[in-house]
């Protein structure tokens, strides 16, 4: 490479230096734990307060119940003759069965896809195709095929959770560090050893991420599934309350779904932390 000698510097030589205050650069850390918690709590309280304020306006109160009304609904619904807990338990049951079966089924399928390219080529187009269809669109078909019992709900949730989990777990298996596999081979590991000792633990974090995404998908789909053709469940309760303009019950249902989702996600997060401490 030729370096031009004695080139004239294209930049002016005497640029003025102006001393100013030390510049403060953006801090990308999360800040202190205390500040975070404080702001979280403040934000939630403010949310409730705003909610309370706008429901003071009568025209808004007709379609949006106030915090007090929702609280009253919670009390009356959880009374012995209320149906609150029955709705929760039936919805939870649907989620856990649909999700559970999907979880158990998705892991071996994802591993088969990751391990055998031929299985991948056979299965992948179907998964990619069904992934683009909202499971809710399948509800009419599933109901026609299975009637109005519990089975169609399990099936819809299963489909939603299964697709999300299979794709996530399979992606994870594909991303397992190939050097680890090479290293194990050089130690004398067989394909079987590689599968059990390397692939499974290495893709564990992805299994847990898949489970969280699958759980979120189950919840979303469940509510949609319950909007038609069932009397019990949180989705059905919301739907029913809407017909009686009982917005307190509607809101109670919505909040309950949010809380269930939050708790389930935190539970999975806890499992993840416990099981992948090495990460």
């Amino acid at each position, binding site marked *: 490479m030729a370096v031009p000698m004695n080139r004239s510097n294209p930049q002016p030589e005497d640029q003025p230096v102006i001393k100013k205050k030390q510049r403060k650069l953006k801090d990308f850390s999360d800040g202190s734990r205390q500040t975070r918690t404080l702001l979280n709590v403040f934000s939630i309280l403010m949310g409730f307060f705003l909610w309370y304020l706008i429901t003071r306006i009568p025209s808004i109160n007709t379609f949006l119940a106030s915090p007090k009304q929702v609280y009253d609904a919670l009390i009356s619904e959880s009374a012995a003759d209320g149906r609150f807990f029955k709705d929760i338990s039936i919805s939870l049951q649907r989620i856990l069965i649909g999700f559970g079966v999907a979880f158990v089924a998705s892991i071996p399928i994802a591993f088969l896809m990751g391990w055998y390219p031929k299985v991948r080529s056979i299965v992948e187009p179907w998964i990619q195709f069904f992934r683009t269809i909202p499971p809710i669109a399948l509800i009419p078909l599933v109901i026609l095929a299975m009637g109005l019992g519990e089975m169609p709900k399990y099936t819809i949730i299963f489909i939603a959770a299964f697709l999300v989990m299979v794709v996530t777990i399979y992606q994870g298996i594909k991303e397992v560090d190939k050097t680890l596999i090479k290293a194990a081979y*050089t*130690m*004398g590991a067989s394909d079987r050893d590689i599968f059990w*000792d390397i692939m499974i633990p*290495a893709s564990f974090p992805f299994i847990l991420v898949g489970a969280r995404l699958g759980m979120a998908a189950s919840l979303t789909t469940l509510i949609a599934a319950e909007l038609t053709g069932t009397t019990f469940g949180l989705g059905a309760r919301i739907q029913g309350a809407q017909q009686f303009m009982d917005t307190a019950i509607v809101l109670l249902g919505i909040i309950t779904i949010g809380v269930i989702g939050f708790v389930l996600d935190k539970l999975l997060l806890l499992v993840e932390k416990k099981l992948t401490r*090495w*990460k």
Partner: protein
Amino acid sequence: MENSIIKIENVHKEYKVPNGKNVKALDDVSLEIGKNEFVCLVGPSGCGKTTLLNIVAGLEPFDSGRVTMHDGDIIGPGPERGVIFQQYALFPWMTVRKNIEYGMKFLRTPDGSIRYDAEKKREVAEYYIKMVNLSGFEDSYPKALSGGMKQRVAIARAYAQNPEVLLMDEPFGALDAQTRAQLQEDLLKTWEAEKKTVLFITHDVEEAVLLATRVVILSARPGKIKEIVDIDLSYPRTQATKMEDEFIKYRNYIWDTVYKMFLEFRK
């Protein structure tokens, strides 16, 4: 060559490049590695150093030629040839101890039974943890270790399998200068205490001269053996060896040869 363990004879290897000319990675490479030799492979990047090491490791096939260990063809990887990678390749879900113990489960006695029980594995791991100065970190996970410590775990893990041959692919390439100097000395000490046959890849000429009994210079594209230089420097070698005139002579000679090839290649 007498006592040769690894024989590489007329090995050719091409990489298929989709819609392009195939790249000749290795062109008629022949090399014998004797018992307890420390052979360093140097050469400009893209000269097929790693390919050659992978072939000896049994991780990559080749097109023609022969690669043998004790006159038996190398047809795949095996615990008699331990490999140490630049990126450490520690299993992140295993503690230091478990990492070192892991490979021992594949060791067999001549009659085919498992060589070490759990207790013996632990004992061997303990010994090598001490050897690489990692006592106190037995139960740490790799994420808690520095790069230098990780590589020491990898070295202990390879030694724990007691391989006859160690294949090291730029093991210190990702480390800072001080850590690298320290690990070079540690490796020299370990090698002198427990002799192994080593094939070591590096692009650092100083490192090659400091460690090796022989330096093999590869040329780039196609990867061919350009020259083999015997390093007649006495052991024990330390960082101070780098100040000796003889050392500097070797280093300059090899560096010139490699750099000339590099310039040639860039044209």
